């Protein structure tokens, strides 16, 4: 390993460490999963322990898009637009089975998984997922952020 790549990999690690503990989420909450999202965010489960305690309500200030709840075909262009408005680096979490696959809403109105519209980094299944599952998904996302090649 050359000196150059040594420094690059160490810099990647440092940036990854910083980024994984400063997650600013954009909660795109459309349905009942939102209650579980709130439970996770509140003091009992305390998502702030993972550095993700400050949701931003502008996509331009956020770097993780939490898609929480059923996405209908009518809502899909809005979700795509929110995703496009986020600045790099950005990640997407599919929260609940409706966002993962459409869930039991296999019907004329519902998007069958948001990964048909936007790229997804972490899938959190459950209807709704328990806060423990959410935190597990968040930690998996942190691992992904910490170990990926950083662009800046």
């Amino acid at each position, binding site marked *: 390993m050359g000196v150059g790549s040594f420094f690059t990999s160490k810099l990647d690690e440092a940036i990854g460490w910083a980024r994984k503990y400063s997650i600013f989420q954009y909660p795109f909450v459309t349905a009942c999963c939102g209650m579980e999202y709130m439970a996770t965010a509140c003091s009992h489960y305390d998502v702030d322990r993972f550095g993700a305690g400050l949701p931003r309500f502008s996509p331009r200030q956020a770097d993780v898009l939490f898609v929480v709840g059923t996405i209908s075909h*009518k809502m899909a262009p809005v979700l795509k637009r929110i995703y496009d408005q986020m600045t790099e680096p950005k990640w997407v979490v599919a929260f609940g089975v409706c966002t993962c696959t459409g869930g039991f809403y296999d019907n004329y109105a519902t998007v069958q998984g948001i990964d048909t519209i936007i790229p997804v980094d972490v899938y959190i299944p459950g209807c709704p997922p328990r806060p423990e599952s959410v935190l597990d998904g968040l930690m998996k996302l942190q691992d992904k952020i910490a170990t990926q090649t950083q662009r800046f």
Partner: protein
Amino acid sequence: MPGGPILQRLTDQFGAGLVETHEYRGDTTAVVERRVVTDVLRACREEPALGFDVLMDLTAVDYSKYPGREDGPRFEVVYHLYSIAHNHRLRVKVRVDEDDAVVPTAVPLWPIANWFEREVWDMFGIRFADHPDLRRLLMYEQFVGHPLRKDYPINRRQPLIGPKA
């Protein structure tokens, strides 16, 4: 006023306009012809003894392939009325054919009918004559067809963006 006198009153006033009436476990129902539906609803709204000041719900039913109803009109538009003053309820039904699926609007009587009728148009494709703004309510404008009709294919998907399958 219990259900019997309500139906009696409507029968006295509209006679042949009523197709049938029945009462079952406190649910009072009157099936009326389309030509008198506006008059029946206005009487329900405005006569003090009836006093149906709330349109609780306005919806429709698709009876195609329904056992025993194969030959009858395909759709039934259903009005659920409630009177706050008298604390009584009435269900009014109108039967319409697929070829001529038009019902007079109830918006002048109950403004809430505006969105109810838009929803029925969206889901069943029943039009409401003289409705002020008959656009789809739930689905998007580009959507083709009416998804709660029984002949709408259960697997048909019409996404605005993303894969068509």
